[in-house]
């Protein structure tokens, strides 16, 4: 569904991504794990068109989306829940969700989709008129995910959804990700929490300083001595 071929990204003189290639097959959860600063977020932002790669190609459902503006990529059915949630803090929850459906001109459908989001995340319904900035971290993560779902993505990119959340909430968020996947959304998940993400993923890639150093079946990666040593605490 998504194919990234030898992508290089520079920030000025800094070579942040040094040739990443990866593939996300339809219907799967693929995870990108690695330490802080490895280039995971840059990779996601490049796929979404927020950063332009210096070289390399990105294909979504066979279509070359390299250099296509972000809003056009979203139109194709690919969106991202960004790192740190990035909700619109000064707007109420329902407006955040409305913005998620910005490209959908069918008002009835938007209302239905919003209903679905509220059913999935009942906490958001209770607070729909409150400013998004007043939500707790976990609720903000739910809002960010709900907002992304409003655009009915076929491929959802998630950047560190577990960041800063309590273990119980992390579990909840991961079970929601799994559920979304079972309902048909393909997922590319970036995480520092390697154990959790490998346990729900089908496939995994390990990123280190802008390169993919390991790739394979998620179960195998969980068992691999290198991953265990570097990310799972021995």
């Amino acid at each position, binding site marked *: 569904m998504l194919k990234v071929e030898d992508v290089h990204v520079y920030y000025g003189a800094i070579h942040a991504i040094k040739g990443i290639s990866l593939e996300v097959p339809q219907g799967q959860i693929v995870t990108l794990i690695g330490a802080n600063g490895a280039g995971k977020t840059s990779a996601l*932002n490049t796929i*979404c*068109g*927020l950063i332009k790669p210096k070289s390399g190609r990105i294909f979504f459902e066979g279509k070359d989306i390299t250099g296509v*503006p*972000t*809003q056009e990529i*979203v*139109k194709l059915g690919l*969106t*991202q829940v*960004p790192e*740190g949630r*990035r909700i*619109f*803090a*000064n*707007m109420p929850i329902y*407006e955040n969700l*409305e*913005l*998620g459906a*910005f*490209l959908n001109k069918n008002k009835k459908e938007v209302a239905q989709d919003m209903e679905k989001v509220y059913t999935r995340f009942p906490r958001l319904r209770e607070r729909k008129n409150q400013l998004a900035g007043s939500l707790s971290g976990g609720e903000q993560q739910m809002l960010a995910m709900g*907002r*992304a779902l409003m*655009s009915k993505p076929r491929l959802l990119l998630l950047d560190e959804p577990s960041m800063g959340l309590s273990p119980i909430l992390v579990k909840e968020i991961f079970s929601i990700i799994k559920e979304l996947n079972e309902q048909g959304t393909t997922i590319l998940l970036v995480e520092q929490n390697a154990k959790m993400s490998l346990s729900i993923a089908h496939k995994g890639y390990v990123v280190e300083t802008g390169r993919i150093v390991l790739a394979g079946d998620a179960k195998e990666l969980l068992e691999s001595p290198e991953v265990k040593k570097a990310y799972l605490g021995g």
Partner: protein
Amino acid sequence: MDASMLSQQILNGITLGATYALIALGYTMVYGIIQLINFAHGEIYMVGAFVGVLMVTVFQQGLLFSLAAAMLACMVMGVTIERIAYRPLRRSTRLAPLISAIGVSIFLQTLMTKIKGPQPVAFPQVINDALYKIGPVEISKVQILILIVASLLMATLHFIVKYVKIGKAMRAASEDYDTAALMGINVNRVISFTFAIGSALAAAGGVLVGLYFNSVSPFMGVSAGLKAFCAAVLGGIGSIPGAMLGGIFLGVAETLGIAGGFDMYKDAIAFTLLIIVLLFRPTGLLGRPIQRKV
């Protein structure tokens, strides 16, 4: 100063302040989205006033038509300036577009001086001005016109920003540029729209002020622009209600200052006020505290 004099001055101040507010809105909206102080904004206001004069004199049009024409012309001009002078510098340092804006400002002033000469031009009195007495105060037809037009424009702006889709996109883009794009919002289009609206409001301000003071000059945008910028900062840059409040506040303070005998310091009032307010409220009257992401 007795009560009737005081209320008269406040009324005059609100009228003047409404024009400041119209200009200040453009500064604040543009800053809200691309964090640029558009130093050419005062010149857009000046060009708007000249387009108004042109419409009334050469094309013999009525006031409302001239007002609309000036707004439309400046919309196109504002969008074009952004395309040519600011957009190519979007991803560079913050200083670059600022300098570009100063360049545009000088360019427009010089161009207008070349075309019309440096002398002020009289704004033809297209409406038969009359004074009405309401209780202790007198209000002129032009003042009523300014207050009505400014309120209508600001109410429309409020409606657009609050309820219309493009207005919501504006608010989203001003909160978070990249995330707005992830919603499928074409941020470039939103920026163009912001420049269009801001320039139209400034043009309306230009025509109204030209009519009010019966004078239009290539340099009128300099001090009006600076004061409106003060008004925007005073109200809290980036905040639309802040710009409206800041404009009115500044207009009233200036008029009262003049009536109080400080007419020599007329132009200093705005800046003194700005310093005082910023000392106590660094983000302005209605500005939000600056949030830094970690």
